[in-house]
């Protein structure tokens, strides 16, 4: 099983922490799914008060989940912004892991792959372990690996769209070209079947948020996603049969009674 910067995940589900109806439901989603990684962010503290502000309460909740923390640079549109955010995240969360996002378009939230490669190089040279949110483009993947990334996270579909795997051929090709690199489908997954399909393609994990947080029952959906991802992973490891165009009887023909 491929490792993420030396870490073996106990569960192929990486789960976001945003948009849940309440902190208690967020915690329940992690508990029922067994998700191994929680993505988090940094935002302006909304004012110190007796509890130290909203961010302090969230931090207490996240620590209690006992999962790996993967801070992101969500919303960053420039290399400088992403690099500065990464440095702040490393200090705040005490981890070298960083989900690197350099957004190139506000409508599609697709990555600015040129800025992504530049930022990835700066950060890996500075000791970060970068999880780049990228596309399925093979040349970009090659550049990211040359920049020092040891994990790639291509999108399945635009962030928050729930469209699933928009380019199976591209993701399959990425898997085939980089057989030793841990790959995560990040963004776009809307249903457990999408998560299973991503894993059946040979991916090592799926990262999702909105599909769980916006479900009517987030905890149950989180569990469904985890089960689906695990099922897809088991299927990929089981070496699936090759599909064929024509039917092939599974029941033996030899020995069939002559009854017509």
């Amino acid at each position, binding site marked *: 099983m491929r490792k993420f910067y030396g870490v073996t995940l106990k569960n192929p589900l990486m789960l*976001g*922490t*945003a*948009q*849940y109806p309440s902190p208690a439901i*967020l915690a329940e989603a992690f508990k029922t799914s067994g998700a191994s990684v929680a*993505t*988090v*962010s*940094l*935002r*302006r*503290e909304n004012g*110190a*008060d007796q509890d*130290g*502000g*909203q*961010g*302090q309460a*969230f*931090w207490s909740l*996240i620590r209690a989940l006992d999962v790996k923390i993967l*801070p*992101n640079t*969500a919303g960053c549109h420039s290399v*400088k912004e992403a690099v*500065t955010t990464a*440095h*702040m*995240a490393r*200090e*705040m*969360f005490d981890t070298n892991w960083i989900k690197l996002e350099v957004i190139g378009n506000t409508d599609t939230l697709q990555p600015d792959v040129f800025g992504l490669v530049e930022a990835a190089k700066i950060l890996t040279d500075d000791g970060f372990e970068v999880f780049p949110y990228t596309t399925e483009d093979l040349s970009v993947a090659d550049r990211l690996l040359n920049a020092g990334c040891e994990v790639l996270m291509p999108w399945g579909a635009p*962030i*928050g769209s729930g469209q699933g795997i928009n380019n199976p051929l591209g993701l399959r090709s990425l898997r085939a070209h980089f057989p030793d690199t841990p790959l995560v489908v990040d963004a776009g997954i809307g249903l457990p079947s999408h998560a299973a399909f991503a894993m059946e393609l040979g991916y090592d994990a799926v990262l999702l*948020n*909105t599909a769980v947080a916006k479900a009517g029952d987030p905890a149950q959906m989180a569990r469904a996603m985890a089960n689906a991802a695990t099922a897809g992973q088991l299927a990929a490891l089981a070496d699936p049969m090759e599909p064929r165009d024509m039917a092939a009887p599974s029941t033996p023909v030899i020995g069939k009674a002559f009854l017509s």
Partner: protein
Amino acid sequence: MQINVNGKNCLIKANTVFDALDELGYTDAKIATAVNETFIPEAARPTHMLCVGDRLEILAPMQGG
């Protein structure tokens, strides 16, 4: 002096980032800081001097995807 804290103008007595955070009530908070878009590590807060008009960003852990 007047500085800008998380996008809002703010009058403070402190001269350093460390003292400003203390004055603003963030003494023991889990935060990260930047001044004028440059990261200020925790270790540098006591010696980083603030100037009138500086933009101090105080970030905290938040939900993310």
